[in-house]
């Protein structure tokens, strides 16, 4: 499977970035999905999609109040909109010279850098490297829906690992989460509650 381009970078910091994409591209990224921003041949940043935002524009505001908007108008507005769909990505690590680090990237991506979905082998390589060190970036982001984000991410990543016959990854990931959160009962129960709602369990 080839990586799918999602969009181009709008703004970024060391910890996160926002990518703008067309609606046709916006069907691809999923909440909790792992994405990659290649900066050069030997350096890529990995991130997790934690928000997908569709802002309004002037035309939409007018159409919302109009009666009987034709379908082709709606479709035209969606496809040819002026304001891009914004995909927010949390940086969770990077790859440099073939080695994966669950650390914040040394430098953020630049505007208009391309963002791609991770292929399953990339997902397996990143999530299977080390001992789930990238979880701390997620858990530190207090203003994110951590439980939902983790549940979505574990479901997607587990599917990638299960595809190759590794059915233990999800258990190991949950064990690590429990270890990290066992002194934070409310957060842990929120995370486990969200996980319980996925089919992985």
């Amino acid at each position: 499977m080839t990586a799918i381009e999602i969009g181009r970078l709008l703004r970024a910091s060391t910890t996160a970035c926002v990518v703008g994409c067309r609606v046709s591209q916006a069907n691809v990224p999923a909440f909790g999905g792992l994405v990659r921003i290649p900066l050069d041949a030997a350096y890529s940043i990995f991130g997790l999609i934690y928000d997908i935002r569709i802002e309004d524009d002037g035309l939409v505001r007018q159409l919302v109040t109009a009666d009987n908007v034709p379908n082709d108008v709606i479709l035209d507005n969606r496809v040819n909109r002026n304001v891009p769909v914004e995909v927010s990505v949390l940086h969770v690590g990077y790859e440099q010279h073939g080695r994966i680090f669950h650390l914040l990237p040394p430098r953020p991506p630049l505007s208009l850098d391309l963002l791609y979905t991770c292929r399953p082998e990339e997902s397996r390589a990143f999530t299977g490297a080390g001992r789930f060190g990238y979880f701390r970036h997620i858990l530190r982001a207090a203003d994110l829906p951590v439980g939902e984000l983790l549940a979505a991410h574990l479901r997607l990543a587990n599917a990638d690992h299960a595809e190759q016959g590794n059915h233990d990854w999800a258990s190991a990931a949950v064990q690590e989460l429990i270890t990290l959160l066992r002194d934070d009962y409310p957060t842990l129960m929120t995370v486990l509650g969200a996980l319980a709602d996925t089919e992985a369990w």
Partner: protein
Amino acid sequence: MENDNTIGYVVGGSLKENLNVRLTVSPQAVQEGSFVVIDSGDWRFYGLVTDLVLGATDPRFADEQSERRLPPRLAGLLHGQTLYTNLEVLPALMLERGPDPADPRYPAWRMAHTEDPRPIPIKTVPSHHAPVRRAEAGDVAEIFGDPNKKGNFIIGYTREQLLPVCLDLDKFVQRSSGIFGATGTGKSFLTRIILAGLIQHDRASVLIFDMHNEYGPDDTASDTNQRIPGLKSKFHSKVQLVGLGRDTNIRGATPDFHLEIAESDITPADIEMLTRELNLRETTSTTLNALVGEFRDQWFRRFREMKPGATIETEDGKKIPAPDSVEAWANQAGVNVMAALGLHDKLRKVFYLPYIVERPAGDAISEIIHSLEAGRHVVLSFGDHESDLDYLLVTNMLTRQIRERWEQTTNEFRSGKSSREPRPLVIAIEEAHKLLNRELASQTAFSTIAREMRKYYVTLLIIDQRPSQIYDEVMSQLGTRISGWLGDDLDISAVLSGLAGREALRGMLARLQPREEVLLLGWGVPMPIPVKSRRYDERFWQELKGGSESKRSEAQILKELGF
């Protein structure tokens, strides 16, 4: 390094407060009293599980039944991380095992330690996260002795793995010992087992005061009605069965000889020891001294023959005490008449004991002493004379003479007058609290033996169900203590007095199985340990006398050691 027996790792603790060990196996896989081994650096630590504590990283994880909220797999993962069991381990011994032989440091360490290290009392603690494992056969043999070595007597087996736990009989007889337990906990069977071991080992003579005629002749178990072989029928001429009183028959068995006490052997001290039993007054001592002062060793007979209240009439018709009356003697000796009359009345119980005679048929006491000195063992059965009065009087009189004899023999040996070293002697006494309670202990020969006679080759084996009734000073002198289940707090405290870690051991003692489980404690065992006591049955005798046990154990031990 972990192995299949690993059950957890050290997470905290101290020498004073025990070690805390996080359990990595199911709590049901470990029991209180388990003998565990902790390897940490160059040291190996030996300890005893004294408690299991359920814990949670946050109390809410324990409070909430999350298995109802979460899928089983998630709940299992959560419980595995947040709910845990901690062991409390009483550290007892440590052994410097040195670096691994493959370690470059090993040659230097071996040069500095030419002798194989021995376990020593605990002085430090293992490091955090040191692995904890169940003891294996080699560990039990390292601490409690190799069952194949002469003198190591298997007294029971570890609770979980049933590994043989030995008692070093040579060490056991060096100091007085005690066997305790509430009634019905198997004290008598355990005592039989230990006595049989001592007799078979044959390094000390054993004198058994068999108040209830249990040890010498064959008996029948009160609960199973099965025949229980006695020591006499198993050891034949090695054991002398002595019956108290002429023509005494012990459960159908004829004793080897009978014990009769000469009236002249009874001293005022023997009577004073019966103060509580006879309800004697403070004036007793004065009256007895006057009797001995006047009649010497005939005081007992002469006093018995006096007639209390006998009078004669004078020529003027006045009644006065007869010359052979108690009153006449009291007046003449300057003793209070009422005191003399009272004592005479109370001594009636002693005057007419059938085994106290003017001229015994033989010198049974000397014969007992000679048997013991010659390496034989004596069971003194009380026959029908099972009252406390009989027991107190006879045991004390006999022990007094034995004590004097062993003191004399020892002094002669030590001063070079004799080249014959005294034969170690163990005196087994049942219902010990009757002789060693606070009131009597200072008056009987037994307390002296418990305190001082170790250096004269005499020690006690006391058997009792109320250790709290035994004088503290005597209890403190007991080297080895073997206790079955005890329900009374005071009894438990008495058994544990003077021992390290007694708070931790207290619960263990109270939670022993009511039958066939005992706790080994004290100086005679390297560390406390609860064991399933050996069964007193035909197999025991086969193993004791036939040696099949040693063959089995040898093969088993070698296999378990990996040879």
